[in-house]
């Protein structure tokens, strides 16, 4: 029966050779190579659940009075947008499940991209000929951050509205044309024109998903065309010879299984763990705010940066050149992403290594890269943790103001220490390997000798 189907398709498309090649496409086998797939499957769940939500969401900013089933909101004024999401959460059957799954999928999507990026960085997978793949992946990450931000801001609840105001403040802080950019995006000063929510809607449900889909296709296409990198797990793997498991029958059930595992975990979370209960936050007003407002985790590094910068606007002769939020909201992520984009070129320049690389390095085999990478991760992580210093004061009674001062020092000292420690760890691990190898060989020989003796 398969034969008949294949024949039908081949006669009409001529793709049998391509399909055969695809079926036997080789996947080098290591668990860390699956992290990118986790991101891909999270994206699929996002598109599926998002499509459903888009059929119920209303992007209107007209003021309405709530008369629905959730009592604490009865009689309150809110936008149509907010009401439609309260409606999805309380009235549409399975609406809350799909909404929560969508939000969990977004959190997990970015988390898995970050894990995947760490694996790519620390194993040198971005090296020639895969720089393009790496840069496309970084772009997907940046776009995913924006997409998530827009997604939860579309709800117009108190928490995300505060986040939008801050985004506006950060846009304004761009030197020379901050106000122009902000006025262009919002259609004037905050809260902007009514069209702003329609714009977020179109960007979030159409423009960015299309962009991510195209970038993903290019990313995966490039991986397939140059083939996947591999670790040197035995003598068989070399720069020329790829050792792997074919797509069919080996890899396909495993990848498919991973897809359903991702879907399963996301739907379990979507049903069992509450996320963004917007009916509790209430509608947004520019004159309202709540304590403890935070952005979604993947923007937490920015709130930490915004809180740490000391109080000053850089003013020259009455011209406010650099308003305060610029450092934390634009410069800090700008430095991090510039570093990531330029890293393959910088590494090439410094090491002089312009060769083709299909074999990955274990982190210990590239001590400088690992040390610098660990330092960077430490820097971002410390800033991220600083963003939660107020909760730490509430929970553990450690003065917030004192913490801020401590972090202002720690975020510079910590990465240096971490980098030095990582470097030394790499060197020590490398030194230990021949010793370990000799020890194992000696054990093996001793065992073989004992067996011979037994036989004799």
């Amino acid at each position: 029966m398969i034969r008949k189907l294949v024949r039908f398709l081949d006669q009409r498309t001529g793709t049998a050779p391509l399909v055969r090649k695809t079926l036997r496409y080789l996947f080098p086998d290591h668990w860390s190579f699956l992290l990118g797939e986790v991101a891909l499957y999270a994206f699929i769940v996002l598109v599926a659940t998002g499509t459903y939500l888009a059929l119920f969401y209303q992007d209107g900013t007209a003021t309405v009075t709530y008369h629905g089933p959730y009592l604490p909101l009865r009689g309150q004024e809110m936008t149509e947008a907010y009401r439609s999401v309260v409606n999805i959460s309380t009235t549409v059957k399975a609406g809350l499940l799909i909404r929560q799954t969508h939000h969990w999928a977004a959190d997990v999507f970015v988390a898995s991209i970050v894990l995947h990026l760490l694996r790519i960085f620390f194993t040198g997978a971005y090296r020639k000929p895969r720089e393009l793949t790496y840069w496309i992946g970084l772009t997907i990450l940046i776009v995913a951050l924006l997409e998530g931000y827009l997604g939860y801001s579309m709800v117009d609840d108190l928490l995300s509205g505060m986040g939008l105001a801050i985004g506006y403040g950060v846009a304004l802080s761009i030197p020379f044309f901050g106000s122009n950019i902000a006025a262009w995006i919002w259609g004037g000063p905050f809260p902007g024109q009514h069209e702003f929510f329609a714009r977020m809607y179109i960007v979030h449900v159409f423009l960015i998903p299309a962009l991510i889909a195209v970038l993903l296709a290019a990313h995966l296409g490039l991986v397939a065309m140059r083939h996947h990198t591999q670790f040197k797990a035995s003598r068989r793997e070399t720069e020329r010879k790829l050792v792997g498991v074919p797509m069919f029958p080996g890899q396909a059930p495993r990848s498919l299984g991973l897809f359903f595992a991702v879907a399963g975990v996301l739907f379990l979370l979507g049903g069992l763990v509450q996320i963004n209960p917007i009916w509790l936050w209430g509608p947004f007003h520019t004159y309202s705010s709540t304590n403890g407002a935070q952005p979604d985790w993947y923007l937490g590094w920015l709130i930490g940066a915004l809180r740490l910068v000391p109080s000053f606007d850089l003013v020259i002769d009455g011209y406010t050149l650099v308003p305060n939020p610029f450092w934390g909201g634009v410069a800090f992520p700008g430095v991090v992403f510039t570093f990531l984009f330029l890293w393959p070129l910088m590494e090439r320049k410094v090491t002089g290594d312009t060769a083709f690389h299909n074999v990955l390095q274990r982190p210990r085999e590239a001590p400088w890269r690992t040390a610098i990478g660990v330092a960077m991760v430490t820097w971002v992580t410390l800033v991220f943790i600083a963003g939660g210093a107020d909760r730490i004061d509430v929970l553990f009674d450690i003065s917030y103001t004192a913490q801020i001062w401590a972090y202002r020092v720690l975020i510079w000292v910590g990465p240096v220490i971490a980098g030095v420690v990582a470097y030394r760890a790499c060197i020590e691990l490398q030194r230990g390997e021949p010793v370990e190898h000799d020890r194992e060989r000696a054990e093996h020989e001793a065992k073989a000798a004992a067996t011979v003796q037994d036989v004799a």
Partner: protein
Amino acid sequence: MARVKDLLVSAALLAAGRRRPKLHADREPIVPPGEERPGSELAVIVLLFATALFAAAFIAVYALDRLPNQTQLLGASLGLAFLCLAAALILIGKRLVVTEEIEEDYPVVEHESEQEAIAQVVADSGSRFTRRRLVKASFGVAGGVLGAALITPAASLGPFLDVEPFYATTWKRGRRLVDEKGKPWRADDIEQSTFYTAFPEGADKEALPSSVVLVRLPPHDFKLPKAIANYPAQGIVAYSKICTHAGCAISLYRAPLFQPDEPRPALVCPCHYSTFDPATGGTVLFGPAGRKLPMLPLYVDRKGYLRAAGTYDEPVGPSWWGVRMRKPKPA
């Protein structure tokens, strides 16, 4: 009746029967054969039936919408259905299909002859051009200007070049202060050690310049610079409620009950904890804000209502390049 019997027999055979797949005896197997694992096979079958069971539970829970904890039951059933399917597939992948480790060459590093051929095709194609640089430059100009033209309508999205709206305010001399419901504030309403939110009568409450926070301080507590020394009315001061750092609403007021032992009065923003002193004109005490809070001058009219005596001393909201270049405009 015979039909039903046939159906039952087929189902029983399907469940219990086992068959080794026919191999083409005349051909070399492409995928190497492996041993049978009936235990794993049974596990896969059980997992697949479990998948069906959980999926059916999902449909049932959806239909019976009077159940409490609907979302939890829906999520648990669908999630478990997916996880059982995942387990079945992973089991197949690891134990029921042969895991081959095949060697293959990586694709060729580059195709130098093809690269040259492409370059040559392009070069040959230009053999009829005599003024190549000029043609290229013309294309560049055409493309550049046409591109600019195509981008131009994007300017309609917002007043890209107009900064006047950033200086506009919804206050002017004589405008009454009202609460969220539109009721005017009287000076007598405003007590010490607490805070109030006010808006200009008849204006859009959501506009950033509209919301102000009102506090009353003992008259001898003020240390205002000369330019705004006459802004308070009977000890009542009004500051923009929009934080000058990044635009959140300043909804915290630190009001000590016993001054000797507690931090002094301050307006605080919950986003990054910028802290402003109401006694000195809104200067920054702590936090990242780089600019003081704009202050609204007040007076009390003959009937005892609070009114604005003008507009703010500085533009409201987060700082931008022109925020210190001009005074804000009254409504």
